Structures are given as structure tokens and as C-alpha cells.
């Protein structure tokens, strides 16, 4: 049995995204996004019978949705705590649940006060996935993701000649997309020179290589494929999905090949499940906690060979009209950091033809990735249908 085509994303919802100052709790933000996603699907809250919580920000659990939405018969609940890989991991869980007949309509809510609440340097030290680096690396001053990931980027540069200006291409293109979005927190265009002039955070990563910390919520509903036909929106099927964990998943320092992410294991499985190749992809929403992580994933996805990501992204290749439009909503770098749930929402919009000024013409097949913690990778391939 394959999960390909057994589930569809039937509803998408987002709150307004803010770069801070939202007084509402993570739960309220998740509830608002959830109501929007359920309504978008043409469902009522009582129709939800499954919940996957990718990131229990604010201590939010499935029971909170039962209580607040008045869900009468929740048949399936689980969590996918893979950090930024969790949103796409939740898709796979949801499709498996509806394919297995456990439930019909799975809500996947995400929301956070990433700017107003605890900031990144404080937050991750409390996550169990960071226990190992917390004991052995934090005492040296390796505290935050930028500092854990920067050596991956540095090694890529030393081995393959990748440059900071190539990373800048990703930041600049992503910002241009955010400006088209209408619900992005960053609205001023930037240039490669702006990127090069931005202050160093963790060499070689500059400020404009880093994602935002944001307040907001995003949610989707995944339904059994046959049930999706009767719902309100054009159907978007999940045709390929996979999760992959890098070698030495708890410490990048000890990883045999620091330039290879968990996605390198997951991507071939997802493409095989969907029966497509990277050349078939019309649009890609790629987890962009840092510019380098996008570049590395493009290689691990097979859009180019390992070491060729720098050349691949040059010349606006990731822009609308480029060889592979990437992060057409503005991503974590320039729209908002919703741990990749905003990437899922955007891919569905693109495949429905609802992406407005950022619409990739005739987008029929796309992919979304997640990247979590210290290298976990997830991928979902979706098709209009």
C-alpha cells in the first residue's frame, strides 16, 4: 500500500503575521488560524476528527482544540516534535491517518509568539532535541541555531567555493516575493549589497541570512482524498511524502558529512512515491530558517549536485519566472517564521491558483520541505487534482 494520493490538503488558514507585539497567546493564534482553515475547506469545527500538533508552542495540546472548537469525537491525535520539520511531518501523519480510515479530517495547527514571547536563544535550550548540544556545546558559547548551523555553511564554502553573495541571492529573491504577498512582515526590497552590509551574526551567516522571529498562526486541514472531492476548494493531493534523519542527529559536530541533511535520505523516497523527478516540479516552498539551509536542501533534493547549490541560485534563478520559483510567499526569511506551516499554506495556494501576484503560471506540481533542529528533513510533494 502507498500513501500517495490518499490524502488532500483541503483547508488553509493564517492569521495576520506580525514582527512582534501581538498580545494574544499562542493558543488564540492557533485557534484563529484553525477556524480559518476549517472554513476554507467548507467544513465545520465538529467535522474535525483528527489533530496533529507539530509544535506545542505555548504548551498547546490536542485537548485544547477539542475544548475550544467543540469537537465531539476526536479519533486520532499525535504530535510531530521535529522542530521546523514538524509541519511537513504532520502532513505525513495526517495522510497516514486518513488513508488508514482512522479519521477523515485532520487539523494541523501551528502558532507562536516567537517575537513577543521567548526568543530563540532561550527557547531552544529547553527543547529535548537540544539536550546533547546543551550539555557539550553550549558551555563553549554555542547557544543558538545560527551558531550550530554556521559551521555547515563554512565547510560548504571551503569545500565547494560557495560564497556569501550566493547566499544573498536567496535572501534578495525571498524578500521580493514577500513584497508581493500582502501578509508579510518585511516589505522593503533589499539588494545583494544590503545583504553584504548587514551585520555578522555567526560567520558566515549575516543578519539577512537569518529568518525572522514572528507572532502569528497558520493551520491546514488534511482530508481523505475521496472526501475532498465534495469540499469547497480545488483538490490538492499529497502524492509523495517522507521524513529523513541525518547521521548523528543530535550533534552536527559529530556528523560524518556536515553538508548532508536528513532531507538527502527523505527526498528520493518522496519523489519515488510520487512518481516524479525534480525536473517536474513547478514551484518549491523550501524551509528557510537560514539562506544556507535553502541552498543545501536544493542539493539534497536533487535539483543540482552536491556543491553546485551556489551556482544554481545565482541570477535570480529562484524568483518568479526563474528556473525554479522558491518561497513565493516570502518564507521564514521575509514573510514570517511559522515553522514552515506558512510554506504548506503557500504551496496549496499555488496549486489552487490562488497565489495572487506571486502565482506561478499553471503550477500543477510542487513540493514543500521542513528542516528541524539539527538536520531532520521532511518533504511533501503535492499535485493539483
Amino acid at each position, binding site marked *: 500500500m502507498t500513501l500517495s494520493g490518499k490524502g488532500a490538503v483541503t483547508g488553509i488558514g493564517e492569521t495576520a503575521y506580525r514582527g512582534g507585539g501581538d498580545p494574544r497567546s499562542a493558543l488564540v493564534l492557533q485557534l484563529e488560524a484553525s477556524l480559518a482553515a476549517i472554513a476554507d475547506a467548507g467544513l465545520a469545527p465538529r467535522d474535525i476528527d483528527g489533530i496533529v500538533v507539530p509544535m506545542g508552542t505555548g504548551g498547546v495540546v490536542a485537548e485544547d482544540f477539542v475544548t475550544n472548537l467543540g469537537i465531539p469525537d476526536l479519533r486520532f491525535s499525535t504530535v510531530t516534535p521535529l522542530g521546523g520539520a514538524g509541519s511537513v511531518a504532520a502532513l505525513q501523519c495526517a495522510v497516514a491517518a486518513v488513508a488508514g480510515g482512522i479519521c477523515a479530517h485532520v487539523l494541523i495547527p501551528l502558532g507562536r509568539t516567537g517575537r513577543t514571547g521567548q526568543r530563540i536563544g532561550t527557547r531552544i535550550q529547553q527543547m529535548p532535541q537540544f539536550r546533547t548540544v546543551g*550539555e557539550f556545546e553550549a558551555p563553549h558559547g554555542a547557544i543558538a541555531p545560527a551558531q550550530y548551523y554556521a559551521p555547515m555553511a563554512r565547510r560548504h564554502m571551503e569545500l565547494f567555493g560557495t560564497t556569501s553573495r550566493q547566499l544573498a541571492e536567496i535572501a534578495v529573491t525571498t524578500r521580493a516575493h514577500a513584497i508581493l504577498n500582502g501578509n508579510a512582515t518585511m516589505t522593503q526590497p533589499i539588494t545583494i549589497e544590503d545583504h553584504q552590509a548587514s551585520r555578522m551574526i555567526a560567520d558566515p551567516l549575516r543578519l539577512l541570512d537569518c529568518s525572522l522571529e514572528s507572532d502569528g498562526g497558520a493551520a491546514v486541514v488534511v482530508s481523505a482524498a475521496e472526501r475532498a472531492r465534495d469540499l469547497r476548494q480545488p483538490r490538492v493531493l499529497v502524492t509523495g511524502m517522507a521524513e529523513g534523519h541525518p547521521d548523528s542527529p543530535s550533534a552536527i559536530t559529530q556528523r560524518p558529512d556536515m553538508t548532508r541533511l536528513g532531507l538527502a535520505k527523505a527526498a528520493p523516497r518522496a519523489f519515488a512515491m510520487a512518481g516524479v523527478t525534480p525536473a517536474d516540479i513547478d514551484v518549491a516552498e523550501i524551509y528557510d530558517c537560514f539562506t544556507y539551509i535553502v541552498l543545501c536542501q536544493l542539493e539534497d533534493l536533487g535539483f543540482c549536485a552536491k556543491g553546485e547549490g551556489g551556482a544554481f541560485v545565482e541570477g535570480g534563478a529562484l524568483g518568479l519566472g526563474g528556473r525554479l520559483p522558491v518561497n513565493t510567499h516570502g518564507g521564514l526569511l521575509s514573510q514570517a517564521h511559522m515553522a514552515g506551516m506558512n510554506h504548506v499554506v503557500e504551496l496549496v495556494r499555488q496549486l489552487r491558483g490562488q497565489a495572487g501576484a506571486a502565482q506561478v503560471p499553471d503550477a500543477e506540481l510542487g513540493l514543500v520541505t521542513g528542516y528541524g533542529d539539527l538536520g531532520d528533513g521532511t518533504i511533501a510533494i503535492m499535485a493539483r487534482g
Partner: protein
Amino acid sequence: MTDSMPRKPVPEPSADSRPHWEGLAAGRLLLQRCGACGRVRHYPRPLCDSCHSFAVDWVEASGEAAVHSWTVAHHPFHPAFRPDLPYTLVTADLPEGVRLLAQLRGAGPEALRIGLPLRIGFEENGEGLTLPVFRLRD
């Protein structure tokens, strides 16, 4: 201790890692070696992922290392490290077959390249914790 004097993160040793930290306190870098198959592993953990033996010996590292990668921290993600900025964090290959992360001493990051030979030293961090540091090998 008040909020105006932030402390650097203090490791909370587990039963598996306590000998490693006790070794550092004595100025020795001790690594776990499987008591059955002899494979050296780091960071400390209960089980040999090669032969699945729980048996552990501790061996002292040679002190040699070679640059694998690095970063230079410029942003104060933790207030206790603000006075140290900028500092260079080096990931280095040890001849024992594992890697070590530590700060670089006595040179700037411009000296670094993959494979550059290093020596492991030890330094008290000002708060009672002894940590390894790297220096360029002459």
C-alpha cells in the same frame, strides 16, 4: 548572584558523561571507548552503536586535532558570552575518530582552513568550569 551578572551555561552531567567532565576538571580530555569492540565515541552515551555493548572504558585523547569547520560568534545570543565577542568556535577532527567543539585561542579565524593542525589545551572559564580550547600547532 543577581540578574545583572548572567552565568554561562553549566553542564548537568549524566551518569554517562560524568567521567568526561571530571576528566576536564583535572585537565584531561577523556573519551568513551567501547569495552567490547574498542570503538571510540563522542558525545558520551550509554550504548555502542556499533556492537551494542554497554561496557565502557575511558581513554585520554592524544591532544592532537585538525580543523573540520568553524564559525565566529558576533551576536550575543546569551548575555554571559557578550564580553567574549567575537569568539571563534572550531569543530575539529581528533585522531581518535571523533570530533571536538571548542573555542580557538592565540589566533584569529583568518588563520583557519580545513585540515589545519591544532593542539588541545584546557582553560578555566572564569566560573569554575574547565573546558578544552584549541591552539594552532606550531
